[in-house]
């Protein structure tokens, strides 16, 4: 069978499996729809969280991004894992003890304010919607590159599957499909990482191959010889302050993402929420410690295979010819010597943030253009893996995108149907009405996501990267203070939240005004050396400081709210939380 037949078979097979799981786990009550009936085993919840969390970007693009950034790629490696420590220690067990269904639920009750509830619900919808459009682009990439399916058809098909799972199975269906999706994506990733590690170093375990062989040092030396930055040396692409702030913004943002937090509402007890965060990070860490190894191996291999060879020679290699067609790998013989060489700088000039393949950048001698996505996508062919494994990688990329999309859809659905509709607009709504609204919202959100994925307005791609900064500056501080500072009150939390959110939005808007508003130059370079990706950290600090000061100048929260804080601090009784009360 050809690679294409294998890919079709595996993708169709996995989609049927996901649909079957959702159908088997269909739900009829809100407890199942929002929080999977609080009956998910901590290890399974760990797997579901890992799939929920690892997006198309983690699976397809991250290793490539790291191989380009070298040491500084740590902003993604540490930034997208360290937040789980914050979640486990500061948030998950207490929110699980509190019970109920959503993050805005907690913020609204803890700050005895429907304004706070509404702001938190709107922040949830906004963060999730920007995030989901990125997943849809990932689906488009996988389907168009492997199967030649038109991107629009690909996105619509994927969303029908995702919406079906969400509508039928609710959180329960999503949880168990995510467990299956985790299996597919991690298997694919480890196969790829292991195969290339074995070929280049003789050790099939990528993490060990990276640590115990000198391949990273050799890559570093090759890069230096070519005039590129030393791979293992820090701060070649960002300043130390930028690495620091971006990493922190991503960590805190992770801990503030509603679709991640809500996963910890689904385990039976508060103590399960703690250990489940450990399992989640273990499962995520399997991919996140493989990615930097894969980045080193793939880059080493590309430099060794391509640099200084004649154009005919490199085009004779199967995978080079294939990926050149997709423009993920492109050559431009600038000096006309018939050979291709790596050098610092860009091969092509950029137009609208993408390389313009007809317009070489003559200021640089670089003649080999490598798209970040190629590192994961091409490695199975480079390592001469069986067509089955190549097909598995396509299915893995798809699983990563679909699982994240589903988690986001249910987060948006509960923010609208539970927080806005039931808790604020129609407190007398019946369970059946709430479920109906929840299911309709999944459809509407899926339709909007499809539109954003097919026709991304220029700024959407920009905003996706900043969803973390916004989550860090808005939702994280009021939740943490709601648990750890009994004196924190409504006035403090709301003014902090608004300060953090507005500051971060304004800063991102000004620093990225070219992409967002189409101004000729950015309205602002950076803020005290901190760029737009890291600015959420400043927003978060402002949020904490403003909230603290305002809360001390205004009356303390009412007695029953202080009792609520004492109640969530004690794990005892968390297993009894059922239904509406606590």
């Amino acid at each position: 069978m050809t690679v294409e037949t294998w890919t079709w078979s595996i993708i169709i097979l996995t989609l049927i499996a996901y649909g079957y799981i959702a159908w088997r786990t269909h739900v009829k009550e809100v407890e199942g729809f929002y929080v999977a009936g609080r009956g998910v085993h901590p290890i399974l919840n760990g797997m579901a969280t890992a799939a929920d969390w690892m997006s198309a970007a983690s699976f397809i693009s991250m290793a490539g991004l790291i191989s380009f950034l070298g040491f500084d790629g740590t902003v993604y490696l540490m930034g997208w894992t360290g937040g789980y420590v914050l979640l486990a220690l500061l948030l998950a067990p207490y929110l699980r003890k509190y019970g109920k269904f959503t993050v805005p639920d907690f913020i609204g009750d803890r700050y005895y304010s429907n304004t706070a509830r509404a702001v938190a619900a709107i922040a949830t919808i906004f963060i999730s919607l920007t995030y989901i459009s990125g997943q849809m682009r990932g689906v488009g990439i996988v389907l168009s590159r492997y199967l030649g399916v038109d991107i629009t058809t690909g996105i619509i098909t994927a969303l029908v599957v995702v919406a079906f799972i969400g509508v039928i199975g609710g959180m329960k269906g999503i949880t168990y499909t995510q467990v299956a999706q985790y299996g597919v994506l991690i298997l694919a990733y480890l196969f790829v990482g292991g195969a290339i590690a074995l070929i280049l170093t003789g050790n099939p375990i990528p993490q060990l191959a990276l640590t115990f062989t000198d391949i990273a040092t050799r890559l570093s030396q090759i890069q230096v010889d070519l005039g590129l930055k030393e791979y293992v040396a820090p701060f070649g692409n960002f300043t130390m302050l930028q690495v620091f702030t971006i990493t922190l913004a991503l960590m805190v943002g992770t801990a503030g993402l509603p679709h991640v937090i809500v996963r910890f509402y689904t385990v039976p007890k508060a103590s399960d929420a703690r250990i489940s965060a450990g399992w989640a990070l273990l499962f995520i860490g399997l991919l996140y410690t493989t990615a930097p190894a894969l980045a080193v191996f793939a880059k080493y291999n590309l430099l060794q295979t391509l640099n200084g060879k004649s154009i005919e020679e490199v085009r004779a290699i199967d995978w080079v010819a294939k990926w050149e067609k997709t423009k993920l790998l492109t050559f431009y013989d600038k000096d006309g010597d018939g050979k291709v060489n790596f050098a610092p700088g860009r091969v092509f000039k950029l137009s609208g943030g993408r390389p313009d393949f007809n317009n070489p950048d003559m200021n640089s001698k670089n003649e080999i253009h490598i798209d970040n996505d190629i590192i994961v996508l091409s490695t199975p062919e480079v390592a001469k893996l069986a067509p089955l494994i190549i097909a598995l990688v396509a299915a893995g990329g798809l699983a990563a995108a679909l699982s994240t999309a589903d988690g986001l859809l249910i987060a948006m659905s509960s923010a609208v149907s539970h927080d806005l509709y039931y808790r604020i607009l129609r407190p007398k709504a019946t369970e059946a009405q709430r479920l109906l609204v929840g299911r309709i919202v999944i459809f509407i959100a899926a339709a909007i996501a499809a539109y954003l994925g097919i026709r991304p307005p220029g700024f959407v791609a920009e905003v996706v990267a900043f969803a973390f900064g916004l989550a860090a500056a808005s939702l994280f501080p009021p939740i943490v203070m709601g648990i750890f500072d009994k004196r924190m009150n409504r006035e403090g939390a709301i003014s902090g939240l608004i300060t953090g959110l507005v500051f971060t939005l304004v800063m991102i808007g000004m620093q990225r005004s070219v992409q967002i508003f189409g101004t000729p130059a950015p309205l602002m370079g950076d803020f005290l050396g901190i760029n737009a990706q890291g600015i959420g950290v400043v927003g978060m600090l402002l949020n904490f400081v403003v909230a603290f000061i305002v809360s001390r100048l205004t009356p303390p929260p009412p007695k029953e709210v202080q009792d609520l804080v004492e109640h969530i601090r004690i794990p005892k009784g968390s297993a009894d939380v059922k239904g509406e009360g606590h």
Partner: protein
Amino acid sequence: MDKANADAYWKANTSLIRNLLIVWAVVSYGCGIVFAQTLNNIKLFSVPLGFWFAHQGAIIIFIVLIYVYAAQMNKIDRQFGVED
């Protein structure tokens, strides 16, 4: 649960959190970022130490920290009789 006992439980919890977050910050922001350049002069097996922390070590230690917290808290919960 009386107030004194509840306060003692909360104190035990927050000191544990503080200690673990210090380790969290030292391995990531310390070893992986601020002191990475210096640590890169030392080799761990075949790779520079700063690079290893930034690309492998910090993540592994994060995982261990969560398991330690979960295990220690189960102990503290039982000690104060507040296990769930």
